[in-house]
């Protein structure tokens, strides 16, 4: 029964990883930018939710409502001001830029909030602690289920938007060939800025739910970035459904690893990631990204 429990908990944890990976996958898919500040931006979002939640004494779910558009606007401005310029410098410059941004955000948060570990769980009320008890060995926490459902809705919704709507078509066309997109009237900068706005909003969502279901601190970002990156690669680059699957595979690998021995939790996730990279599919991914 403990194995069934491990898989169920992994599935729920995978929902959170998929939510983290969503924005990373989108930005890579549309702009070929690997946003090394993704994890820190998620943590920044979590701190904003914390700030609103404690200043106005509201639940973090309510606090998300103003924070999401603020972070989306931040994403729009970030793309227009910093990332657009670094994109013109070639593929390596955005990597350096976002790395720098990661350091700035992390140290800024450290300065403002101290390195204390905190959690939004208490503010969220009973939903963060209650479980749906199936039997003595298996319980499904409400918050885990909520995050998984949210991940399916966000990633699935974005995937449908990309496939079915005029805006999604423009985004796919720009991702394939920004120069030709301009020749049919699509301003690439506008599509890029909107993609970054969406990516930062989903990162904020992920950061807030990390803060609610467990703990966070100014230095939490890079770990989340690694998990998100692994989820994107396991799921296959450029597909949001794949990213959802990749997040879940990573989550299950970690909980099964932990079930064998708690020390193996993170390691098991890394091993699955490396196995995918070493597989024929991983080689296709590597050759495709160098060909671009």
């Amino acid at each position, binding site marked *: 029964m403990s194995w069934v429990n491990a898989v169920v908990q992994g599935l729920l944890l995978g929902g959170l990883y998929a939510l983290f990976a969503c924005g990373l996958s989108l930005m890579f898919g549309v702009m070929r930018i690997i946003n090394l500040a993704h994890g820190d931006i998620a943590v920044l979002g979590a701190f904003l939710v914390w700030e609103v939640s404690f200043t106005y004494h509201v639940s973090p779910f309510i606090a998300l409502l103003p924070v999401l558009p603020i972070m989306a606007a931040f994403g729009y401005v970030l793309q227009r001001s910093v990332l657009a310029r670094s994109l013109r410098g070639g593929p390596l410059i955005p990597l350096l830029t976002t790395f720098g941004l990661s350091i700035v955000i992390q140290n800024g948060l450290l300065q403002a909030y101290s390195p204390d570990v905190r959690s939004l769980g208490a503010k969220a009320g009973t939903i963060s602690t209650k479980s749906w008890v199936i039997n003595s060995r298996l319980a499904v926490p409400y918050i885990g289920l909520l995050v998984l459902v949210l991940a399916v809705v966000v990633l699935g919704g974005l995937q449908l938007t990309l496939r079915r709507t*005029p805006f999604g*078509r*423009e985004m*796919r*066309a720009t991702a*394939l*060939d920004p*120069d*030709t*997109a*301009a*020749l*049919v*009237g*699509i*301003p*690439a900068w506008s599509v890029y800025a909107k993609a970054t706005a969406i990516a930062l909003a989903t990162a904020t969502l992920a950061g807030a739910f990390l803060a609610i279901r467990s703990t966070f601190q100014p230095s939490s970002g890079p770990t989340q970035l690694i998990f998100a990156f692994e989820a994107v690669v396991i799921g296959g680059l450029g597909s949001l459904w794949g990213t959802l699957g990749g997040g879940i595979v990573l989550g299950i690998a970690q909980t099964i690893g932990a079930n064998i021995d708690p020390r193996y939790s993170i390691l098991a996730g890394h091993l699955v990631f490396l196995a995918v990279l070493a597989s024929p599919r991983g080689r296709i991914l590597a050759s495709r990204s160098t060909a671009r």
Partner: protein
Amino acid sequence: MTLLEVQDLHARHGLLQAVRGVSFTVSQGETVALVGANGAGKSTMLRTLAGAHPASAGSVRFDDVDITGVPAHRRVALGIALVPEGRKLFADLTVEENLLVAGRRAKPGPWTVETVVAAFPMLKPLRNKKASQLSGGEQQATSIGRALMTNPRLLMVDEVSLGLAPIAVDAVYESLTSLIKSGSTVVLVEQDLRRAMSVADRVICILEGKIVLEAATASVSRELITEAYFGLRAQGST
């Protein structure tokens, strides 16, 4: 009425001067063929006119407005459409999506997915096929259709028949001819001189980035154009 006015246009690829001081005009409803050898600067010039390549000097006026510094996507809104060399379709999108994506920001006009498919009947069974699975001729038809979806006032087609099977060239030209007859303003680049002369009102021959011959198709012989094409005339006169 003059629709496009190009004055002393220069464009370069780094140190290479691809277009060196080209001036010409295109009137409303006219069809102009640009001919010239590979590397003469035809594609660079069309891309500069479309805003996809920066002009290093000179000016481009469209409908009496200076558009020299206007970015490509805004020129599309003004009514300039380019069918780029090599078709450049969005490979993962279907034929219909390729058309729709261009039509989204278009001004209302005669061209919709339905009218494009009617003008290029070969696209009818292919609407839900991915662009990457099309043959060369089908791709060219889709690419021209995609440009038409923006309801352009000036359509520029780069290398109409390059890399196409003869039968596909016939089909593309059939649609292009009816388009020209309907009064559209077209600038096309064509390697096949006979084809170019059969549809165009005027031929402009470019050699090493400069115009060496500009004449109405009715008043010029193929021999004269061929000489200009290879630079024989220029050599003879110096």
